[in-house]
């Protein structure tokens, strides 16, 4: 469950203030897929970064699974973030690690024993369908394969929530379709709540239960997807 309450985010200082988000409230129920759509500059990127406090809102509350993230200490926040997966437009895989070690990364962060890492990474490789690529480096993978690795990495700690930041915007239409099907499958199998932002209406139509429209930093409307 994600609840954003009256989120306002201002950037800049000393007189020149730019308001990226103004009084946005959004609720995503557990197990749902919510799409946020809007033109570039509408505040989508800032909005999704407010959910795990990569950007700290100037005002408002961020509640994830009943916990108000704004009140947590940095170390408590780091722990909560391990239960919120995130994938990105440009994948953000570590070039210095192969596929296996990239997926193992979030598990290493909370000192998971090596044997458990081994077992979990193999499960995830299977889930996203890239078992044969375990020892490849990201530089040798296609865009779709990279995003599969990123999804596996995001799911490593069994998060309740997955944030998708323009996750298919760097992919061709066919690959976009397969990645979206994978996200849908994960949502159905694991009951994971997904918040995704996109500028492509087709993405919303393909997998979202609900859509929120953002424009000029304001939430314009929220509706069910037919």
């Amino acid at each position, binding site marked *: 469950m994600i609840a954003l309450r009256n989120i306002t985010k201002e950037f800049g200082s000393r007189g020149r203030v730019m308001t990226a988000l103004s009084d946005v409230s959004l609720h995503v129920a557990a197990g749902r897929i919510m799409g946020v759509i809007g033109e570039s500059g509408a505040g989508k990127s800032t909005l999704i970064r407010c959910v795990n406090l990569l950007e700290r809102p100037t005002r408002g509350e961020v509640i994830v699974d009943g916990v108000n993230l704004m009140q947590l200490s940095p170390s408590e926040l780091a722990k909560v973030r391990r239960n919120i997966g995130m994938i990105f437009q440009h994948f953000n895989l570590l070039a210095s690690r192969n596929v296996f070690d990239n997926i193992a990364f*979030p598990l290493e962060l909370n000192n998971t024993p090596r044997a458990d890492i081994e077992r979990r990474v193999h499960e995830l490789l299977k889930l996203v369908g890239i078992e044969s690529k375990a020892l490849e480096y990201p530089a040798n993978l296609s865009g779709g394969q990279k995003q599969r690795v990123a999804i596996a990495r995001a799911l490593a700690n069994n998060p309740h929530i997955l944030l998708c930041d323009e996750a298919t915007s760097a992919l061709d239409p066919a690959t976009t379709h397969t990645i979206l099907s994978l996200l849908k499958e994960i949502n159905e199998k694991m009951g994971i709540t997904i918040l995704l932002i996109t500028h492509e209406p087709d993405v919303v139509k393909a997998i979202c239960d609900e859509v929120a429209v953002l424009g000029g930093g304001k939430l314009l409307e929220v509706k069910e997807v037919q």
Partner: protein
Amino acid sequence: MLDLFVKGLWETIVMTFVSGFFGFALGLPMGVLVFITRKGQIRENYAVNSALSVFINIFRAIPFIILIVWMIPFTRMVVGTSIGVAAALVPLSVGAAPFIARMTENSFLEVPYGLIEASRAMGATPFQIVWKVLIPEALPSLVNCVTITLITLIGYSAMGGAVGAGGLGQIGYQYGYVGYDLVTMNIVLALLVILVFIVQATGNYISKRADHR
């Protein structure tokens, strides 16, 4: 004569690598600190960043030959003498550290910001980000920093020779410059050139091996 060159070469190698080691022991943490305290970075801190930056700039501004002399009291305190290889290690390490700090900072700047953001999103602590993301991702570039530093130190150590630091520099200076022995001077130069080539080639090889981009 051969003994002289072997001894000189060995002293130069010792000075270069030992001061390179201590230079990194001092410079790498400084580079990490100056990077993570930059604006928008994981431990943004204007005061620490500016203070460190000023400190680095001051030490980088001091010409090495003057640094050696300027540091004599400190060198005496640390190693008990101001002449010889051990004494040269002190100004060499201190001279290299700020240089290494800046190069480390530059290497980290090349790491795409998205990787740091993704690590933060995964709940990595600042220490984990430095240790598991910044350093491994910047490794090919850091290896190049090591190479550049070692080669610079070979040059610096030769300069130290002029003030009694030992090594090939001193032989070149005494026999070549003071005694005008061209053969000795040219042998010294040839040895320095060979040393630089070996260090550069090894550095390139290791950097390439570490690079998966």
